[in-house]
């Protein structure tokens, strides 16, 4: 048996995230009132007694969810709630639940326990009189023990997958696109069926992901929201995920940015690697490891069992320098895949660029495209906008923190929100693309913008120089502080603003050519097939 301490706290997250429907479950509430011992509940929970709250009401609305026992009552959830005899079945807030009057602890067993105390008084540690009322678990009730509903978990997977991708979120992000393109390439090469396991996001939280074009390849896979199907705290357990993968026995396991996925590989990769090729994607070490990026935390622990996959040369070189001698599947560079604009579309964009002629000194309009968060250089963006009040800055991208709290509430900054499809967007009215990120792997958004025939002012970070040179972009090194960076970036914007339309178009054309050289779908497909043994 395992996880005894986990058992003791096992009902900490018991109810699924559903809207309260107390009125729809009156039978269960009535049953609790019939068999529960309110006096005992208040005795065991002095905080409830002190608050003068009705014991039944408190337990139904709070105590059950908080893992508190109700004297006189025994409950069972998950798969175990639908099996076994001697239980009454209810629904409670939409899910099956089994309950029964708590059976007095069998005297014969209690007597045997007490008798052994003569050999070890530790048996009496919780209190001799309280032993019969200690928490009771059923060994088959994994929802109660481990926070995982075995029936829901296995029902959510329609067939044995050939490949399992483990990701935290379905977002409009570079890592998600990298994973989606891997799914696409693997499926095309015959590596399916594919299961995509989302470890940190519920289906409700991910609502609308199907509309994001960069995530389109996931539509051909089976997407399972691990937090939803576990139905309890088990979704954060590497042991549970490791055992689940051991049960499925896929041929390939790919982990991209999932903490529990990386912990699972670190702890159970030796066993999982006996039947699966495992790859863990690492994109960056961050800047001085600020933000505790997984690239700085996990490679040493996963490299014995998993290929370290990265999308940029600097990260590959860093990993080889740090861990090159370690035995294991090794370190591989797999450039991300670009969705090239077709010739006609790109030709039209080039024509529009050549036609955009502004007089010298005229205000300029810049496109900033990225997730709106401090690591993407929002402080620098705010400083640029403040120092160039005549210019306009259009900010495209999702945010989790209110942008105004990041200093982006300036009158010449327009928050445009998430672009559902960067490739399809029209940037012909912008004079340049501004990329201010503080650190990166290979930022996908820059590859996408390389198809827009727009001059690019790029922070010199990550693997950008592995793809682009000065013919394709104006590179800017961050300074030691925002003031230094502001000076450098502002000079770069001046440089772009001074370009003739023909020079701007030439820069856009060079960016497209250089991106295609390294990131074409054909080159990506060949690399994936080789790395994952599908040639």
């Amino acid at each position, binding site marked *: *048996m395992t996880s*005894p*301490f986990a*058992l*003791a706290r096992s009902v900490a997250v018991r109810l699924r995230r559903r809207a309260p429907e107390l009125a729809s479950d009156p039978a269960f509430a009535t*049953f609790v009132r019939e068999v529960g011992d309110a006096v*005992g509940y208040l005795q*065991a*929970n002095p905080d409830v007694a002190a608050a003068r709250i009705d014991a039944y009401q408190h337990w139904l609305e709070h105590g059950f969810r908080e893992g508190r026992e109700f004297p006189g009552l025994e409950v069972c959830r998950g*798969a175990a709630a*639908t*099996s076994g*005899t001697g239980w009454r*079945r*209810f*629904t409670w807030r939409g899910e*099956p639940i089994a309950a029964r009057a708590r059976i007095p602890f*069998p005297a014969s*067993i209690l007597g045997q*326990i007490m008798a*052994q105390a003569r*050999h*070890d008084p*530790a*048996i009496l*540690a*919780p*209190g001799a*009189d*309280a*032993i019969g*009322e*200690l*928490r*009771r*678990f059923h*060994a*088959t009730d*994994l929802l109660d023990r*481990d926070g*995982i509903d*075995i*029936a829901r*978990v296995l*029902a959510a*997977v*329609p*067939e*044995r997958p050939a490949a399992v991708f483990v990701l935290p979120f379905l977002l409009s992000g570079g890592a998600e696109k990298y994973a989606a393109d891997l799914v696409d390439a693997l499926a095309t090469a015959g590596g399916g069926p594919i299961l995509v396991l989302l470890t940190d996001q519920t289906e409700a939280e991910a609502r609308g992901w199907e509309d994001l074009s960069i995530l389109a390849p996931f539509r051909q896979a089976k997407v399972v929201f691990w937090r939803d199907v576990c139905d309890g705290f088990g979704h954060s357990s590497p*042991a*549970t995920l*490791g*055992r689940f993968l*051991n*049960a499925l026995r896929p041929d390939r396991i790919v982990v991209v940015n999932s903490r529990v996925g990386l912990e699972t590989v*670190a702890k*159970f990769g*030796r066993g*999982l690697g*006996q039947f699966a090729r495992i790859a863990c994607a690492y994109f960056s070490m961050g800047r001085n490891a600020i933000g505790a990026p997984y690239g700085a935390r996990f490679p040493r622990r996963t490299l014995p069992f998993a290929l370290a996959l990265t999308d940029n040369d600097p990260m590959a070189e860093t990993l080889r320098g740090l861990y090159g001698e370690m035995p294991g599947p090794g370190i591989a560079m797999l450039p991300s895949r670009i969705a090239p604009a077709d010739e006609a579309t790109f030709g039209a964009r080039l024509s529009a660029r050549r036609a955009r002629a502004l007089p010298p000194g005229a205000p300029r309009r810049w496109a900033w495209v990225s997730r709106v968060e401090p690591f993407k250089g929002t402080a620098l963006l705010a400083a640029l906008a403040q120092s160039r009040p005549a210019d306009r800055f259009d900010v495209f991208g999702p945010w989790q923190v209110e942008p105004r709290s990041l200093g982006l509430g300036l009158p010449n900054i327009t928050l445009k929100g998430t672009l559902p499809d960067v490739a399809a967007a029209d940037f012909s009215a912008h004079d340049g693309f501004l990329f201010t990120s503080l650190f990166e792997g290979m930022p996908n958004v820059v590859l996408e913008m390389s198809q827009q025939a727009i001059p690019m002012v790029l922070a010199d970070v990550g693997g950008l120089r592995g793809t682009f040179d000065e013919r394709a972009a104006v590179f800017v090194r961050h300074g030691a502080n925002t003031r230094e960076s502001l000076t450098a970036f502002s000079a770069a914007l001046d440089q772009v603003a001074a370009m003739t339309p023909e020079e701007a178009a030439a820069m856009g054309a060079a960016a497209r050519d250089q991106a295609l050289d390294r990131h074409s779908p054909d080159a990506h497909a060949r690399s994936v097939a080789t790395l994952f043994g599908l040639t």
Partner: protein
Amino acid sequence: MTDTPDITVTVILHREGPLALPALSSMHDLVMRARAAGLAVEARAVLDRPDDLTRRMAATRGNWLDAVQEVSVGDLGLARNAGVAAAHGRFLAFLDGDDLWGEDWLHLAHRAATAANAPPEAIWHPQSLYYFVEGDFDRHSTHEMPHAAAQSFHMWHHASDTPGFDRDVLFLNNIWTANVFARREIHERHPYTAVDRSRGFGVEDWSWHMETLWDGLGHFVVPDTVHLIRVKDAGSLGQQNTAEGLLPHLPPGAAPRLGPQRSAPQGAEAV
């Protein structure tokens, strides 16, 4: 002792040190209880790479044992297999050297296994487990309601023929302890698999339960019996398995049932 005892009960010891004292005393209780019930019981200990203190405890508190066997296999499963090879009983029972047992366990298990309607191919487990945490002295209750933060708890075993039993649960966790009682032939046919740390697989009892269940053997519980399991701060086998990242061996060809059709029926007895 007769040539063929009814039961051979074997305690496996490693480096339990003073924890072996209550275990050996408890084992003595249950052996005496079984003998008082008329059963011929062979009582043995297998010491696998023991430390000196554990060896001394076995020699003193275990001086009533019929045999003390020392092996150097460094593996709980292989130590049990050594116990199987040395045992003479028709039924074999294994105990872990830091636990205790209700004194009725052996004789009631034998009664259940030899009842007229007992399945011939059966593995027997105690009905209940009492996981006790010595640290609960700091969360001690002086009345009938346990301290809200008490960590000791009870666990109920369930038989594999319980209505609605889903053997796929075993893919995600163990549901029976190693404290088993079964015919000798079952153990001979299903020796424990050694931990294979180089390949990341082990957890000998969990793997054994899967292997035997998938081979068609039933796992049953013996009413009114209890196994007392000490939960240690560190160093228990379960903690060690997790720390070492060990997964259970799966029986050849074993795979869980997948897809929506496997969902358990819901609401059949909804009130």
